[in-house]
């Protein structure tokens, strides 16, 4: 027998490869289709204990070496990052931040929780994501596990409790969610609310209604001097929708009625969009594609006399001495209201939630962190470090009001939203449904088209309505 290896030709080698590949495909496919996904999920879920943690105390619960918190990359996380070392020192638990950009954070959360697991012990969640968490049941109910009661702390705005509750306490409830008992799944830690900025050197008094905003804009608008009366944030999708919301609500409009009738073609909504188109005409050119950064720039550079804005835009641009040309010329006030509405500012809150997939000891200490960060002393430190506080007493703290002039406008914004809750209406926020992101994308696309002049207000809202019906009806929503 010869010891020389026999040569294998290319054809034989390809045959080997094809055989291996075919075997791989058959085995892989058989395994993949044979194991039902539910079985995997249930196995994982069983490992999550259901013991009620409220009876536990810090003495009986082993302390984890660290807690991992999912946070968004941006100014919203400034405060939590700043106070984390204080918690580490006080509790001897290391805080690790898993930081992702906005879209990536949401995708990361959803894909992780879909698999029935969590690499986060606490998550920082945009309030618009709460319906998704609530309907999927991915978060720990704070009332059941820790005995937390809705509205129990009068220092926390009602809006914060409302946003963290599921199903929504007021307004339309998504199909399939009506029979679920309501629980509290999160509490706001970033008290982000829209505020209004205007040039006090050009405009005599703060506008109290949207009509005053328009008439001010018409008076001061002078493109030849590079000054525009207003600046819209019209970029396609969520930015355009968020900018439109306070105007729409002040006109008495909304996306849905309580029975899920789509209200986009109602007179109130059409009038509001026409009104916004008028404001767009008095805005810097190209503002139909402006996002928050461009809007803040327009105000900070002195080219826009009025704008709806967020606190982060104020601290980072408009009142930032390194950037702003209008530091001493602007005043921050509440967003004008409307019919039965003292202030139409909308929420951009970020909440802390505890995923249900983590062990009980971690849940306990995650909740301890949540309680700790919402104590007045920590909230003040949090706010002094650039975080946006939630507690009312901190929002009115004289030292903070002096340092951050938007604080009193924040308080007014919460009061506007809390008033709605007291009237039995939804808080001033996006509609509460897990399909929210799709809804704001659809509506925001057509608002953008209307602002760009590609559609009239009527045709834009009619098309958005049709698309919403096509999208929501197959999902069981009784839309019409």
């Amino acid at each position, binding site marked *: 027998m010869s010891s020389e290896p026999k040569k294998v030709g290319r054809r034989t080698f390809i045959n080997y490869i094809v055989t291996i590949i075919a075997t791989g495909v058959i085995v892989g496919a058989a395994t993949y289709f044979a194991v039902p996904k539910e079985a995997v999920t249930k196995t994982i879920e069983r490992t999550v204990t259901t013991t009620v943690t409220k009876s536990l105390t810090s003495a009986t619960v082993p302390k984890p070496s660290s807690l991992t918190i999912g946070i968004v990359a941006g100014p919203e996380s400034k405060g939590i990052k700043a106070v984390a070392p204080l918690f580490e020192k006080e509790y001897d638990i290391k805080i690790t931040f898993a930081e992702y950009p906005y879209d990536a954070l949401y995708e990361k959360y959803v894909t992780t929780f879909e698999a029935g697991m969590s690499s986060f012990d606490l998550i920082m969640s945009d309030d618009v994501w709460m319906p998704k968490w609530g309907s999927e049941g991915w978060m720990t109910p704070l009332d059941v596990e820790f005995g937390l009661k809705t509205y129990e702390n009068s220092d926390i705005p009602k809006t914060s409790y409302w946003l963290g509750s599921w199903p929504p306490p007021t307004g339309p409830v998504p199909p399939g969610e009506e029979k679920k008992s309501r629980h509290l799944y999160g509490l706001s830690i970033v008290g982000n609310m829209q505020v209004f900025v205007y040039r006090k050197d050009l405009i005599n008094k703060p506008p109290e209604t949207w009509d005053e905003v328009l008439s001010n804009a018409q008076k001061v608008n002078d493109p030849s001097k590079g000054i525009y009366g207003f600046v819209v944030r019209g970029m396609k*999708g969520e930015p355009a929708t968020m900018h439109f919301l306070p105007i729409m609500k002040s006109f008495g409009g909304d996306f849905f009625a309580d029975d899920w009738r789509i209200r986009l073609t109602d007179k109130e909504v059409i009038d509001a969009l026409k009104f916004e188109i008028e404001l767009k005409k008095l805005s810097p050119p190209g503002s139909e594609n402006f996002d928050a950064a461009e809007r803040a720039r*327009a105000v900070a550079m002195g080219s826009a006399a009025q704008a709806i804005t967020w606190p982060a835009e104020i601290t980072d641009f408009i009142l930032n001495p390194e950037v702003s040309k209008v530091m001493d010329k602007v005043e921050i006030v509440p967003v004008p209201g409307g019919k039965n509405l003292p202030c139409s500012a909308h929420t951009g809150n970020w909440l802390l939630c505890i995923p249900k997939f983590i062990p009980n000891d971690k849940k306990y200490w995650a909740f301890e962190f949540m309680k700790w960060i919402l104590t007045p002393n920590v909230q003040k430190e949090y706010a002094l470090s650039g975080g946006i506080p939630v507690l009312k007493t901190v929002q009115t703290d004289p030292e903070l009001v002096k340092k951050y002039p938007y604080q009193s406008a924040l308080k007014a914004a919460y009061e506007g939203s809390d008033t709605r809750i007291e009237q039995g209406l939804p808080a001033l926020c996006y509609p509460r449904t897990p399909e929210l992101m*799709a809804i704001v994308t659809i509506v925001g696309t057509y608002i953008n088209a209307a602002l760009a002049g590609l559609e009239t207000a009527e045709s834009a809202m009619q098309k958005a309505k049709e698309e919403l019906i096509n999208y929501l009806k197959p999902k069981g929503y009784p839309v019409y």
Partner: protein
Amino acid sequence: MRKLKPYYILNLPSLFFVFIIGTYLILFAIKTSIFDYKTGEFILFSNILRLAKDNYFLSSLNTTVIYVVITVLTTIVIGLSIAEFLHYFVQNSKLRSFITLLLIFPLATAPVAVGVMGRLIFTPEYGIMNVILQQLKVINEEIKWFSEPLTALTAVIFMDLWEWTPYVTLVAFAGLQSIPKEVYEAAQLDGASKIKTFQYIDLQYLKPLIFLLLIFRTADEFKIFDIIMVMTKGGPGFSTETLAVYLYRVSFKYFDLSYGALLALLIMVVMMVVSSVLNKLLWKEVIQPFR
């Protein structure tokens, strides 16, 4: 007993992993497009029916085809022209190295950063593009680039060309450098003009590279996403929404993963068809004549 040669064996692990990863993802996409990813309900036919009636899909496909044709052809024509210029008119080696270095910058820039630059360049009020065009007396009034479908698409395409033309230039320039000098000398002796030299020497030598560039660039442009998302998010309206942007909207804004998987598979099939047509052309026009 037959023994495999070592290089066959050494290739097997990488082939195995590439195959397993590729197969798993494709199988996952196929399964997700057939069965609802949450309920497990059979939804293939309803998804296909939805696709047939989906105007946004057709509109994004239309935008993608326009985008791909314009960007691929323009990058190749401009890239090749710059490469020819470098080959014939820039003989100083230091200057060539410097220009090559400059050409690498756009390639090394992340597409998201290219998008951000695009937003700054084309913003009407302070963007540099309007200033340049006004200085050159091309326009009198500033263009609102992102307000009109045509100008928005032009702005996005411009940034894409800025990023990818250097790639074509570098590849074509490398190809031109490999042409033997004797061939040019022979052409000179025969009295060939510059145009004839380009037509019968440069183009013939570069043909395989041009076909490869066509395949790679088409595949790349078909997936265009980052620049558009940053610059326009597909707006105004739907006018710059390409297939990848639409796929993202369906999958990660609507979280309609089953329909998204079907769209992804469709894009893959379209790409396979386009690539195989180009491959066949490459074989017929370039490889076969030399065999």
